[in-house]
């Protein structure tokens, strides 16, 4: 897959931090909760924070407009609730049996695939959090909630590495 190497140490033109998930389904919304916290911080002008919500297609303009993307999302890998994952989207392509959110709607990974078709695919890193609850609620579970400050730290470290 062709990729723009907005690499380490080079200052890319546009970094997008994308918090995705559904705010109404407890830990499913962890990415959005983190995005809301990040919006309160004073970040460099090259960095924008986006509440991505749940539909990938609607993020195509955000993704193709970025040089570097950091996604925050719930990741269901069967680990202890609150476990934190970090991976580049290109690395999960080799995971056996595929990684696509095939049964749901078009997800973030599919949109990255689609962005190949219109010529621009920014390097994308996912900071993932293992959810505990996907019940209907606007609150996070305690296990995930207590990780929020640490997730913010990790995202900021990620950003710092790009400058």
């Amino acid at each position, binding site marked *: 897959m062709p990729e723009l190497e907005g690499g380490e140490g080079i200052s890319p033109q546009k970094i997008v931090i994308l918090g995705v*998930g*559904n*705010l*109404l*389904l407890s830990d*499913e919304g962890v990415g959005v909760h983190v995005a809301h916290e990040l919006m309160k911080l004073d970040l460099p002008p090259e960095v924008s924070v*986006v*509440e*991505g*919500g*749940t*539909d*990938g*297609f*609607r*993020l*195509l*303009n*955000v993704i193709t407009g970025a040089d570097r993307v950091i996604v925050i*999302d*719930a*990741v*269901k*890998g*069967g*680990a202890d609730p609150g*476990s*934190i*994952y*970090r*991976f580049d989207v290109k*690395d*999960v392509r080799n*995971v*056996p*049996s*595929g*990684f*696509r*959110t*095939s*049964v*749901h*709607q*078009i*997800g*973030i*990974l*599919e949109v990255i*695939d*689609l962005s190949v*078709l*219109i010529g621009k695919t920014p390097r994308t890193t*996912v900071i*993932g959090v293992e959810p505990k609850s*996907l019940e*209907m609620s*606007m609150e996070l579970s305690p296990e995930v909630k207590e990780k929020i400050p*640490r997730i913010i730290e*990790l995202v900021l470290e990620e950003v710092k590495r790009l400058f």
Partner: protein
Amino acid sequence: MAKRLVVDPITRIEGHLKIEVEIENGKVVDAWSSGTMARGFEALLTGKDPRDAPYVTSRFCGVCYSVHQLASSRALDAAFGAKVPWGGNLIRNLVMGAEYIYDHVLHFYQLSALDYIDIMAVANYTGKDKGLLAVKDKIVGLVKEKDTYPFTPRYEPDEFSVKDPEMVTTAVKHYIDALKMHAKARDMGAIWGGRTPHYQNIIVGGVTSYPDINQVFRFRTMLDEQKKFVEEVYIPDVLAFGTGPLWPLAEMGLGGGHYNYLSYGDFQLDPGGKEMVFPAGVITGLNPADIKVARVDPEKITESVKYAWYKEEEPVHPYNGEQVFDLDKTNAYSFVKAPRYDGKPMEVGPLARMIVAGNPDVLGLVKKGAKPGAVARHAARAIETKLVVDACYTWLDQLLNEMTKPGFKIQDTDHWDPPDSGMGAGFSEPPRGALGHWIKVKDKKIENYQAIVPSTWNASPRDEKGVRGQYEESLIGTPVPDPKNPNNIVRIIRSFDPCLACAVHIIDPNTNEIRKFIIE
């Protein structure tokens, strides 16, 4: 001997839907439509400040957030007694107008077109057009790398699939162009909504921020580009396919259903709403030779839960609806309730709106022999996109004019505080069809909240009388010559643009290998 066929999930739609059919002699004789994800977000709203409703309901669905924000704000307008100034209405219309352009283009190219073409025909393109050759190279390259998402997995093409290399390659080129166009349409909505996704400008009584002249001109410039695409690419493609290789499906009336149509009406073209882009109306048992449109009476709307996983109750008006799950109920097969108008199932969406409006282009196709069904649905969608594009120009001119008036207003500031008690309904016609929100306020808080979304009408299960929902009925008689490749079933269902995306978006790798990426 009837044979059961289950298509689960129907892919390339928004959300999760299962369709089960019974096939006899190569044709569908019965059908069941199941929404397999529980919804009922309304329960989250009880006890909240009513002004939170547009914010919370815009998260119901990951897809149509602004649509819920608008319907919810209109329910509040009614409950609070707020009068939206014309300037506020114009901006609401422009937000929704951009939504139409975005949604319909995406639906045709990204979600539907692949049902009608044999993508592999691209490899046989032998013409000289540079753009098309580039498309051929790209697709052939992806096939070589075995990285053919989003074009596969797919059903094997059938006798109706378009196989002409030039037509298919052109369609794939437009598929790619459409990706660019709807990414741009997103930004049009954000001009008014402040950001994308999850615009945040629609509130009770109007909108939050005054427009400036630069916004108007930016929107107009972007609209010019979309208009060109709609008129020169989208509509010609739909008509070329619909009146060309797909005409047999149009004549057959594949996916017709009950022929009952409902439109709540939307998009005022003047402050009094005398003229609407989409007039309100209801049609029962369409007779194309003599179309009778009745006035919509919201009191005639009820929801039945006999075949849905909710506690048994008599059909009720949405003001009194509840969401108490009952997963042990025998005979239940869906989380979608069964809304009915005057006791009857209805189709909502582009075809319903265009027939209710008596649109001459759509009725012209019907006169030529196209029966209302899957193909007509795509045509209606394309034709109404142009109506909305044209209306956007009118609204921009009207907005510029309003902005010059002294005392120009965009919100009814006198009705910001919730009433002690009250109730209100908010109706709109977002791209997928009739949407209603109902709110009851007590002690300044939300006492009850209900929404009936467009796909609830279309994807409805049977009602208490055993009458099928619109998807179910539209599948009866459908030819399925090869049950392994039920092309016609997915063509019909996707022609409605289902959206049951209420809306999980987790990364779920179906493997524990992902755990090697745990960092703490």
